């Protein structure tokens, strides 16, 4: 049973973010010469990085550079072509319940149970992860992501942006140590992008770690502590400022 053993919630944190444990010093992700691709064929140069607890690392690069492929390898959804990747000191294996308990992800999956409403998708996720007080938690997240009016709607009745918000809410409605997001800014309006950025800052403050692929300079600037430029020839670590610069038109 995971009880609230850690420090209490910072006063400025949203109600739906609670720190459960003191921040560990163990890296949350360690990727060493990680080479990713399909059918044994790499799609980008090897990447090496460490993601400490309570920090955010962004993957930046041109379309098709391999950012999402790196994320999939970190999540165990793709066998690396070479190198190694560890999450919380363990080789990545999404078949392990322990891995799934600690890693939450929001990829570009646009798939929903057609008969389940927006709220029911969130209840399913929250209760499936043993979240106490799921009713209140789901209510807060629906409100936060502007979905309260659509709580009873089926996914088919939502706009693509609303469906994206539902996926993001589902990634936050459950406990986690690591949050992996693939271009979370996609299909969100400016206000929701700003809110998401603040939400991810709170996530870090509460002790969570964030790995995200993004093309949004503002999200990068506000959330990321460092960035990895994913490219064909050489992938390298960048400061956030350099990464923001790299996202300017014509640079990548």
């Amino acid at each position, binding site marked *: 049973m995971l009880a609230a053993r850690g420090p209490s919630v910072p006063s400025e944190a949203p109600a739906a973010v609670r720190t459960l444990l003191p921040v560990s010093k163990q890296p949350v992700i*360690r990727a060493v010469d990680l080479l990713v691709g399909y059918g044994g064929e790499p799609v980008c140069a090897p990447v090496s990085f*460490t993601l400490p607890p309570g920090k955010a690392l962004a993957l930046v690069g041109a379309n098709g550079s391999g950012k999402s492929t790196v994320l999939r390898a970190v999540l*165990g959804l793709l066998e690396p072509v070479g190198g190694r990747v560890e999450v919380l000191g363990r080789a990545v294996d999404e078949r392990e319940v322990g891995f799934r308990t600690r890693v939450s*992800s929001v990829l570009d999956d646009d798939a*929903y149970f057609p008969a389940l409403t927006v709220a029911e998708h969130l209840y399913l996720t929250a209760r499936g992860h043993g979240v106490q007080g799921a009713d209140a938690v789901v209510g807060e997240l629906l409100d936060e992501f502007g979905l309260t009016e659509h709580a009873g709607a089926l996914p088919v009745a939502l706009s693509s942006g609303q469906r994206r918000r539902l996926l993001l809410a589902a990634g936050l409605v459950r*406990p*986690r140590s690591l949050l992996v997001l693939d271009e979370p800014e996609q299909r969100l309006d400016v206000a929701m992008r700003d809110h998401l950025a603040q939400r991810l800052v709170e996530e870090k403050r509460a002790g969570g770690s964030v790995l995200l692929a993004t093309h949004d300079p503002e999200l990068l600037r506000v959330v990321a502590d460092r960035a990895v430029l994913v490219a064909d020839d050489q992938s390298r670590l960048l400061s956030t400022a350099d990464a923001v610069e790299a996202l300017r038109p014509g640079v990548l």
Partner: protein
Amino acid sequence: MSEFAATEDDAPAAPAGAGWDDVPAPAVAPADGRTPVPSARSIRRYTAQVARRRSGAGIGEVLGDVYYAVVISAIGLGVALGLAGQLRSTLPHVPDEALRSGISLPTVVAVAAFVVAGVVLSLSARLGPVGAGGAEATWWLGMPVDRRGLLRPASLRLPIASGVIGGVVLALLDGGLLADHGVGHVLRLGGTAALVCAGLALLAGHLQSRGVPRRATALAGDAVIGVAPVLALAAALAGWRVAALPDVPWWLLVVLAVAVAAAWWWLDNRLGRIRGRDLRESGSVATQAAGALVSLDSRELGRALSDSAARPRRRRVRRMRLVRGPVSAVVVADVTVLLRSPRHLVQLVVSALVPVVVVITPQLAGVVGVILAVLVSGYVGMLATGEGARRAEMAPIVDRLLPMSATAVRRARLIVPGAAMLLWSAVAFAAVGRWEGEVGAWLLLGVVSAPVWAGAALRAAYRPSPNWEGPLVATPMGALPGGVAAVLSRGPDVAVLGMVPVVLSVALGTVLPQVVVVQAAVSAIALAVGSSTSTKTMMERMTDMQETAEAEKKRAGR
């Protein structure tokens, strides 16, 4: 060194298999406390219950659906039994001396059983065997629960379906076609086939849980299918024949049942070891195939089955040196697609050997048997040759890049099916000619009729999507939308009508010169129809003409 930099000198991960007990619990949560994680089964049931409630399906609807399914199955079984019996009654009476040459009917049934086993293995690998696609992959697979409870129904689906299909097919062949044993024999043989087929589907599941690529399992199934007719021919050459299908003792059936149950238990215990990416891939294919079946879209079904076993990358990139212009570009593209699809090559070879097997089986080598063999196997072979056209219909990427009209593209696309079916015809018609004692004339007829298959392949490949808006037509199998039937008949219609001269020749037992001339004319029409870009049916075109004529009359009257 930045805290974000990683090097080889960093401490390695915990050894493989190290548990997660000493890893800190999740650092962040939406609430302070935690309740016990529910069972996987309850998550699955909750999802299903909500779906049932929302669809308004009460017990009455469920019972109605069950009743409908049982009635349709019974009618289908009855029709199949009747057809098998009818086929048997049309089989030629063969004197005992003749039965000693060629291969026996029970040998053919044994070979058919072999083919069924290959189909089950191949389809099980392509459609799963165990998968979680779409919403299940997104919302279930991330749950911290024992995945076995989530995947159990999916793991049972294919073994049960394979068992039912395998059992029914073998029972039909034994009881309907051979019909030389009692009901007990048929039931035991059908039961054995059902258990073996279920076991093969479970075997495919085991291989998946051990990380064996689905492509390898599918290819093994394809190889079994390909070997079957070769075995039949080898048996004929060696004089080896099965006099009667063996009577399976009940105790063997029980042993098989226990073995299948043990295989299922073993697979069930390994469900949690199947990687998420494999589950997603398999689930995605199964969803695509199910959608294609529901919408009666055979092209989409073919794509699902082919892509699921496609090689992820090519070791050798073709330089396309044979391309000299737009037409050769289309032809080379079609040839490449065909050569890179082992399933279709096997389909083409096996279908060409079917008429050969039929004519060396004295009990099948009658007029009806040969006509059916030529038409059915020709159609199956033709479907294999149209893969390039079907893919181009879905995504005309190469076509749009080429400076050719739509009609010219279709004419170019006739070349590969035409050439492939020419080879098919050479094998099939040589066999028919040998049976008729006049190889040259029959080969000529085969060559002249090959374009019919090409035209039919193109017509089937470029048919429009099923039209669900037309009026319903009552059939013994329930109400069917007429518009769908009109669309689905595009392709088979050309094949059947275009092969009438061949059918006539088989019925007459000889190839008349006049028939060859008629066949040539029919083949030319088939090519014209196949390369036509019109998607309207004959009835729709007649209606259009009528409306145009009426409009002109009105204008003239004014």
